[in-house]
């Protein structure tokens, strides 16, 4: 087999198209295994053939996709005007039904929110009224029933503070109900005004009073509802204000509160 035979019988294309007999195919394979020219032509022809088939496959795929899109449009176009209107109506219904449902649901929720707010407002007003009533009752009760045998303690002042951990000199007793009166005799009364604060052992301020003035015996008398004091250590501090406006400690009154037996 030589080139002229290959060209004359168009063996390259016949080989690629599988049109050669078995013996011709074997002979041609043996030839191009030993012939670079024929092998090169064969590769080119094969590349072109496969490229043509690939082009056809790509075009077919594009045409099929385009037909699928056109098919839908064509299907719609083929419908009568009445059918198209019906289809459009169905489509609008499909869109409108969820919208209407959402709008209705929104209105319901707003109604529920308004009702709940009104109920909460009513409850708040009722609680306020009840609180006012209780306060008035307490006041009336206090006015109506004088306390008898109110516990009264005169506290001794401590200058410069007490040693830490030392038991205070002042010991008071707390009644179960009612009040306890603490009397504080001030050593100096040259301040224009006084203030006092009551602190628990942990430093937490329980009460503070401002603009206090001692009585004619240079004493401050304080009445505490027994409920604000619990058994434990306390420190009552009295400060006065100087003429220059600066505050200074007049006296401190540490005390221990214990439950009245």
């Amino acid at each position: 087999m030589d080139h002229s035979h290959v060209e004359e019988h168009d063996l390259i294309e016949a080989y690629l198209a599988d049109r050669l007999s078995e013996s011709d195919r074997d002979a041609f394979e043996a030839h191009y295994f030993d012939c670079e020219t024929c092998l090169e032509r064969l590769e080119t022809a094969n590349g072109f053939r496969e490229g043509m088939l690939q082009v056809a496959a790509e075009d077919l795929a594009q045409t099929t996709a385009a037909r699928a899109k056109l098919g839908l449009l064509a299907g719609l176009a083929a419908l009568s005007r009445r059918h198209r209107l019906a289809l459009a109506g169905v489509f609008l219904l499909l869109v409108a039904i969820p919208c209407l449902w959402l709008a209705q649901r929104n209105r319901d929720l707003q109604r529920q929110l308004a009702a709940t707010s009104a109920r909460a407002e009513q409850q708040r007003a009722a609680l306020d009224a009840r609180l006012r009533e209780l306060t008035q009752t307490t006041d009336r009760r206090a006015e109506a029933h004088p306390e008898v045998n109110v516990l009264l303690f005169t506290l001794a002042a401590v200058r410069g503070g007490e040693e830490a951990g030392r038991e205070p000199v002042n010991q008071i007793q707390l009644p179960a109900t009612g009040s306890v009166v603490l009397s504080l005799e001030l050593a100096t009364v040259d301040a224009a005004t006084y203030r006092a604060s009551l602190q628990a052992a942990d430093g937490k301020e329980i009460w503070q009073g401002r603009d206090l003035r001692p009585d004619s015996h240079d004493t401050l008398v304080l009445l505490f509802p027994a409920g604000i004091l619990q058994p434990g250590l306390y420190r009552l501090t009295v400060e006065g204000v100087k003429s220059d406006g600066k505050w200074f400690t007049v006296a401190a009154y540490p005390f221990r509160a214990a439950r009245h037996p």
Partner: protein
Amino acid sequence: MNEAGAPLEGADPSVELVRRIVSGDPAAEAELVQRFSRALSFLARRLTRDEAAADDLYQETFRLVIEKVRGGELRQPERLPGFVSSMARNLFIGSARRGTRRQKWHGDSAATETAPDPAPGQLTRLLARERAATVRHVLAELKNDRDREILSRYYIAGEDKEDICRDLDLTDLHFNRVLFRARQRYKELFERRQSAERNTG
């Protein structure tokens, strides 16, 4: 062969190559691989239609050819090219038969799990797209529709040359010329494209 052991002038290169392999010359084996590599690669791809399988067939063919040539089993050394090509074809047929039998023995599910992915690899797809792009270029350059029709009917529809010539009232010469020019143009463009890719890559 002369007295010095050099090849005689005009001797068949296949005969000489076989002689050197039989005599244990390793360079001759490398020469054999180099000489038939491109053709065997083409045939293997054409037979298997799969890059990985083609590589396996390529390796196995050369292994067996060298083994048999070394063992002196090639009785007609001048037929070395045909020996290599027929070895590749026979190995492929044997492998295809074994593959079919194996699928039958193992049943469908096992065969499905162990079978290689039939989808073409990324490189194969890339090459196919490149070929298609080049062919589109060639088709766009054709001056008349009849030439395009010739190519489409011949390559895509698979019609016989004689039928196409009869239908379009063409001579054999004209038909061959259209095919020849299209292929030549394709070759130029494809090589230019690959060269450009090599330069940019």
